[in-house]
Structure formats: C-alpha cells, structure tokens
C-alpha cells in the first residue's frame, strides 16, 4: 500500500534520511519510534509531501502509494493530501465552529451538497469518538473544547474528506492520560477503514496501538518488524538498548 524505496532525504547538506526502504500494508497501524531528531517526522512528512514546503530540501528514491509514485510530476499535491491526511502533535483547529472545522475540507473540495456535508460531518465526528460530546454545540467555537477534544476534532477533520491514509505525528504527546487513551482507542478502531502511520516518542504507546514498529536512529531505519517481535525479541542491539532504556 505504501512503499518507500531507497529513500534519501537532505535538508541542504544535512543527510536526514539514509537509504530507507519499507512497506506498509493497508488497514494496519505502523508506529515509528526513535530518539528525537532521528528523522521520524521527516519520513512521515515525505508521505504526503509536506517536506515540499521546506526550501532547500532534496529527495532521492521513491515513495509509492497504491503503486503510484507520489512524487511523480502528474500528481496533484492537493488531491494527494486529501487522500493522505495528517494530524499533528499540537491540536490545530481553525478559529471556526466545531461544525465548520470538520466541514472545511468538504467545502473547499466541493464534496457534496448541504445535507451531504452535514451527514459527513456527523459521521466523521462519530468515527473520531467525539460526536456524543459535541452534538449539542456544533456551532460553538472549536477553541471551547479541551485539548483532547480538539485533537479528536482534528482527526474528524482529516477523516471528513475520506482519506485512505492518516499520518499522525505524536498525536497524544500534548494530552493527559485519559485523552491519550481515547486517542489510542480511536487509532485502534480506525484501522478497520484506514491505514495509519504514527510517530510517537512513547514506546508503550507504540506497543499498544501498532501492528508494526520501525525504529529510527540518526536517519537510518535500524529495524522494522512486527510490533510484538520488536518488543519481545528485537533483532538489533541498538533497538534493544533503546527500548529498554539503556541508551546513551
């Protein structure tokens, strides 16, 4: 479903990703872990071309999604980002109502009439496990929600345009434990319909939510395997040292 082949990535002269190759299956959760600055976010951003926005960067190798190179000239980046949504570490709702936040992408992309948009907003809020908490105040500002609710709103916003892949960069690291467990449960449920790639600095979170885990260090993908195997019997010494806290 997602396939990176010999990916090298540079910020100017800085070689941030070194010869990364991996495959991610559809309807699975993949977690990337590793010390900060090792390139997890950089790799995640490559998958919906968010790095294109940064000047002086260079990419070698290819990233295929459903067999198609997303860096091909024919690709419309807006369409691509609709299909591959992203959720960030800090919830970033627009200064609009709850309803308008979720409807935003639908309206911009002219996806459906008023009734269809309403139905889609409701479904997205249900899918992101937020509906019951906001159904009576859809016209209130998104800023009135708690941090955890705002994050689920951002997930609903990403879901509304019917992506196939959702990228999440430390989606729960700014949240309290209860909001965190709601997000984790959500991720777990979403994989029935979406392919999810998550970056997390929380190893136990990776262990709990993901099917496969990739361990990055200094721009290299050291090990990529079934999550169970990674946490019970990692094959590489560096992985073992990192996940058991014997690092540095």
């Amino acid at each position, binding site marked *: 479903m997602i396939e990176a082949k010999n990916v090298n990535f540079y910020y100017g002269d800085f070689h941030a990703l070194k010869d990364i190759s991996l495959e991610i299956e559809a309807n699975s959760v993949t977690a990337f872990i590793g010390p900060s600055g090792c390139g997890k976010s950089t790799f995640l951003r490559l998958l919906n071309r968010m790095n294109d926005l940064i000047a002086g960067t260079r990419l070698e190798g290819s990233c295929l999604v459903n067999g198609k190179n997303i860096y091909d000239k024919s690709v419309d980046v807006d369409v691509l980002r609709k299909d591959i949504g992203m959720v960030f570490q800090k919830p970033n709702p627009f200064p609009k109502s709850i309803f308008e936040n979720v409807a935003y992408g639908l309206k911009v992309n002219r996806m459906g009439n008023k009734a269809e948009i309403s139905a889609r907003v409701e479904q997205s809020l249900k899918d992101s496990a937020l509906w019951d908490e906001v159904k009576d105040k859809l016209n209130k500002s998104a800023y009135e929600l708690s941090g955890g609710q705002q994050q689920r709103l951002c997930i609903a916003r990403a879901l509304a345009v019917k992506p196939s892949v959702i990228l999440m960069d430390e989606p729960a690291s700014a949240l309290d434990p209860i909001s965190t467990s709601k997000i984790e449960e959500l991720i777990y449920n979403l994989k029935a319909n979406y392919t999810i790639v998550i970056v997390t600095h929380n190893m136990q979170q990776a262990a709990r939510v993901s099917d496969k885990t990739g361990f990055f260090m200094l721009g290299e993908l050291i090990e990529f395997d079934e999550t169970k195997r990674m946490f*019970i019997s990692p094959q590489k010494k560096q992985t073992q040292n990192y996940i*058991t806290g014997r690092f540095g």
Partner: protein
Amino acid sequence: MEKAKHNETELKALKEEMSHMWRLVLSQLQKCKQAYLTNDTELAREVISREKRVNTFELKIDSDCENYIALFAPVAVDLRLVLSLMKISGALERIADFAEGIAKHVTIEDFHPITAKLKEDLKIETMFDTVISMLSDSFAALESENTKLSGKILQKDDEVDTLFMEGKEFLAKYVQKESSYSKCVLETLLVLRKLERIGDHCSNTVEEIVFYIDAKVLKHVKSRE
C-alpha cells in the same frame, strides 16, 4: 540515564534472589540423594523441613517479578528475563517438591528396606547424578548468560527418561520373583518416577533460559537434534 541504572539494580536483585533459590534447591537435591543412597533418615528429615524455605523463595520471586513488571513495564530482554524467572521459580519449586517426596520415602524405608544391590541394578545413583548435573549446568548457563550447553542438558533429560523406562522394566520382572518385596518395589518405582519428573523440570528451566538469552522458543519441540 537514571532510569536505566535503577532498572539494572532491580534486575540484579531479582537475579540474585534466583541464584539463592537455585543453590538451595541444588543442595536439597544433593542431600536427598545422599539420604536415599545411605538410608539416612536424619538427613531426609532435614530435606523435608527445609522444603518450606523453597516455597517462600518461589512466592517472593513471583511477587518481585510482578512488581517489576507493573512498575517498569519491561520490554525485550528485560521482559524475557522476568517472564523466564517466574517460570523457573515454579520449576525449581516443583523440583524441590519431588526431592522432599523422595526424602519421605527414605523416612519410611524401615518398613521395606531396599537392597544396595537393587539400587545399583536400577542405576539410581546415576539418575540422581544426571539430574543434579542438569540442574547445576542450567544454573551455570543462566549465571554466565551462555546457552552453549543447553543441547547437552536437554540430552541428559532423554538419558533420565531411558533410565526410568529401564528401571520400570527391571522392577516389573523383579516383583514377579520377589513378591514379598512388592511394597518396596512400588515405593522404588515412585522414586524413579520422581527423578524422571525432576529431569523434565530441569529441561523446562533450560528452555526458559534459552528464551531469555537467545529469544528462541524450544518448548515442546519434538526433535531436539
């Protein structure tokens, strides 16, 4: 890193506790052999009375492992270590149980003495020595974190099984000739059976050590070649 140091201290304490338990069980087994071969009821009673200490060790190690899992959420090699220590403590406890059981046979030996000749014919001393070496070799494997000897130790279990089968055959014939010894024969068969079970539990500990160190699962694999 602070957490890592704390973690190491905790694991070291767990391993130390395990080595105490191991030494105790090994000495129980050695004393039990001595008591059985020399009909030393005094020594047999000592083995019986020290069995409680082994049980205490098992409970302590299990609860320490549970606490460690709850507080440290171990993964990888650390997780494999605690999981295997919990199972090993269970196996050692069973081994000590069987040693106590054999010691009990010694204390009722007066009623139906088994001859030194019969003990020899049954190779009971060899059986004892084999399970004792299995236990001490697997302990050495854990202490040195080296599983090179694991294949050899598991092979010894097959030797014990063979000795048990042969002993059983021998006793079956023996009881036909010496029917007045039937009670003694039954007791002796139970002793052989216990030694055979001790061999099984020694194998289990080796399998756990291999899981911990090499992350391989040997359990219930039919062919060990």
